[in-house]
């Protein structure tokens, strides 16, 4: 067999399956891939005319050194955190809730209803808005949840399509009966002072950060030590085993969708009452999908969601300055998010395989 020797000389790159990686190593890979994504994004920004020193200033120096910018980042991060949690809760049960934005819209509609009709006494107004927002979000996820549980309808499609219905219903309200009577613009009238999340006393930082941190703690407890979190782990790892062990999978999915919808609704409330002070046509834009990306990057870990949300918020705030001072379109921020996500997704490959170069 003369060709036998050919085999031995074969050159190039080979793949080898790795042993399962330790948690620490996985974490290192994750961090490295996020930095790779940032690096690629910055190269693109530099190619489109922004100098490297400007990037350093806008994304690092001005954020850290300016109290105003830092507080903007924190305000921006709160809804990201809650949207990330909403995604994470659903994803732990493998319910792919793509309808966070629709649920945000209905959360905000419910809160705004309380606000413009002045329901309840003033001191409890915000609490009522909070609760109404949560249930508004729940209302918008229940139909896909039932379709999934009873008829096994794919929730990716149903939750996604529900977004469009919610958006058009929002436009119907804003161009109709809820149009701002004082200006005639298609957004709701401005919330009263009692309907806006109070400031905390440092820069423009407000109560939405407290709510976000509180929810992180609750979800952290839910995932890490509660019995329900354990059930979610089992269901996530093997729905077959969950069923065989007597876990009521439909019930778990129902609970999970309710929690996820509630959080989405709260997220809408944080934007309208914490940032915009009214319901607008576009308050929800980007949060739903960012939430999904954040949860993915953080591997559904609540603390991770907090960290990644801060990163995303920094990108947004830095991106806004680039928009103003360098005429870089805001879409560039979404591009950066996408590149980071792609780098992390690609890193999965290196967690499973090792490349061997034989030259």
């Amino acid at each position, binding site marked *: *067999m003369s*060709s*036998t020797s050919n*085999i*031995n000389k*074969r050159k190039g790159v*080979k793949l080898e399956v790795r*042993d*399962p990686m330790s948690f620490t190593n996985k974490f290192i890979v994750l961090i490295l891939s996020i930095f790779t994504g940032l690096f690629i994004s910055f190269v693109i920004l530099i190619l489109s005319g922004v100098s490297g020193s400007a990037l350093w200033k806008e994304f690092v120096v001005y954020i850290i050194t300016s109290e105003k910018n830092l507080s903007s980042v924190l305000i921006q991060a709160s809804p990201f955190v809650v949207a990330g949690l909403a995604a994470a809760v659903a994803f732990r049960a493998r319910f792919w809730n793509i309808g966070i934005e629709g649920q945000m819209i209905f959360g905000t509609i419910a809160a705004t209803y309380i606000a413009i009709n002045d329901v309840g006494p003033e001191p409890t107004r915000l609490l009522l808005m909070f609760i109404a927002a949560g249930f508004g979000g729940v209302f918008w996820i229940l139909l896909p949840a039932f379709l999934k549980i009873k008829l096994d309808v794919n929730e990716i499609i149903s939750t996604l399509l529900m977004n469009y219905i919610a958006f058009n219903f929002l436009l119907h309200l804003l161009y109709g009966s809820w149009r701002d009577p004082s200006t005639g613009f298609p957004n709701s009238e401005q919330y009263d002072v009692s309907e806006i999340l109070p400031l905390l006393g440092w820069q423009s930082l407000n109560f939405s950060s407290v709510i976000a941190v509180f929810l992180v703690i609750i979800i952290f407890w839910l995932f890490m*030590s*509660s*019995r*329900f*979190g*354990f*059930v979610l*782990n*089992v269901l996530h*790892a*093997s729905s*077959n*085993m969950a*069923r*065989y*062990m*007597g*876990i*009521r999978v439909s019930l778990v999915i129902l609970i999970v969708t309710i929690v996820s919808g509630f959080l989405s609704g709260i997220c809408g409330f944080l934007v309208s009452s914490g940032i915009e002070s009214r319901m607008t046509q576009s308050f929800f834009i980007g949060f739903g999908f960012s939430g999904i990306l954040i949860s993915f990057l953080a591997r559904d870990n609540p603390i991770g969601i907090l960290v990644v949300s801060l990163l995303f918020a920094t990108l947004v705030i830095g991106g806004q300055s680039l928009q103003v001072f360098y005429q870089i379109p805001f879409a560039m921020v979404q591009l950066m998010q996408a590149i980071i996500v792609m780098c992390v997704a690609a890193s999965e490959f290196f967690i499973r395989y090792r490349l061997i170069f034989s030259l």
Partner: protein
Amino acid sequence: MVKINQNYKIKMEKITKSFGDFLALDDVTFNLDHGEVHALLGENGAGKSSLMNVLSGIYAPDHGAISIDGKVVKINGPSDARFLGIGMVHQHFRLVKSFNALDNIALTINQTSYYSEKDNLRHKILKKMDEIGFDLDLDSPVGLLSVAEQQRVEILKVLIAGASIIILDEPTAVLTDEESKGLFKIIRFLASSGTSVVLVTHKLKEAKEFSDKISVLRNGKLVDTIIPGKLDDEALIKLIVGEVFAEKPQLSKNFGEEKIVISDLNLHRSNHAIGLTDINFKIREGEIYGIAGVGGNGQAELSTVLMGLTKLNSGSIKLAGYGDITKFRTDQRRKCGLVFIPADRQKYALAGELSVADNYAVAAILRGDLGSWMGVKKLGKQLSTVEAIEEFDIYGVQRLNQNAALLSGGNAQKLVIAREFSSKPSVVIAHSPSRGLDIKAAAFVHRQLLAARDAGAAVLLLSEDLDEIMLLSDTIGVINRGRITAEFASPADRQIIGKAMVN
């Protein structure tokens, strides 16, 4: 008859392979002659699969050399092995279920053009089939073929690729006796035409009957290579397990009250698939009720119906102390003391990506034994798992948070049994509990079932292995096309039961 031939087809010399601290192969020398059927015997984890994975290029050995036809070769991957004429038929088939046989075979060989060579390939396959006497529909999706037919596709795959060395990994594990006989006829034919065959198996009987030589592996070492017939069973078993070992039937001494009564169960399934028809039987406390039958005759349906995982069309299930539990959900039935050992443990009984501790403690946590809804007691979880690992002799757990997927078959099954028996069960449903396990692990499973019975549980044992049924059961029912067609009290006649299974 063994030919004396120093020019072996394959020589594997001093092969060593380790995984971390674990030595899977320890200085193994294995020779394969031209045109021989060479059985590789050993328990699970003895190193049979590792050795063959080295030969087929899936593992790279740490040390050692392989030569084919007297030439030293280096096998860097499965494609190298294929190039050298080594073909492996895996225990779990590697087929694209929605493709037909022709396309599955086309996938494995390097053709220059799929379309222009398709007819060519079909001729080649038909010719080969004719040669070895195969009958196979090349055009319907492989998923619709029977298991035996799928195996034929796998064998054709390696033959068409031009293999002169064929490795069969546990080929009869999924076949009926009749189908196995057909397979061995083909194996003998291939050997007579010069192909060398390695038969990896843990079934003594077929190794003795159908091979020219038997090599025995134990703990990663090649213990001996012998000629079948030179040693009696007892000596051979001693080679395999290192000690003489034979299980004896132990019938139950005291039956109690009727524990579970199953009446007129009916389950209809679409597409003429076998469901359940008018199933009636009862199990007393302290009794093992064995259900014998060829696989796929309703065993899986019966077990899942009893656990409340499959909804039945009519009938009732009554449990002593609880009354009619027909409408109970799975969690409620588990609360009544029903436990379940499903046939496919990797798919249904364990979550491979969860830790050993999580897999063990899931039952106790769901029962509420380890903490309240507010918090799972992590320490209690760890401690109870450690206890179970010691009590049930589970090997291969280096860390409690190691994934359960890393456990070998026998130890995975021990983990399942440890969990299911962690509360005192009143009814045990065990479906093929020792499938794929080696002699020692199977005996361990059997001891656990007997212990549960002696502690007063009603045990339902569904198994395709008639020897296992005969060994353990106090009463034997035969299931055939979804019906219980016969019932015997032990000890019963093996022949008569065997006949009832296939009639």
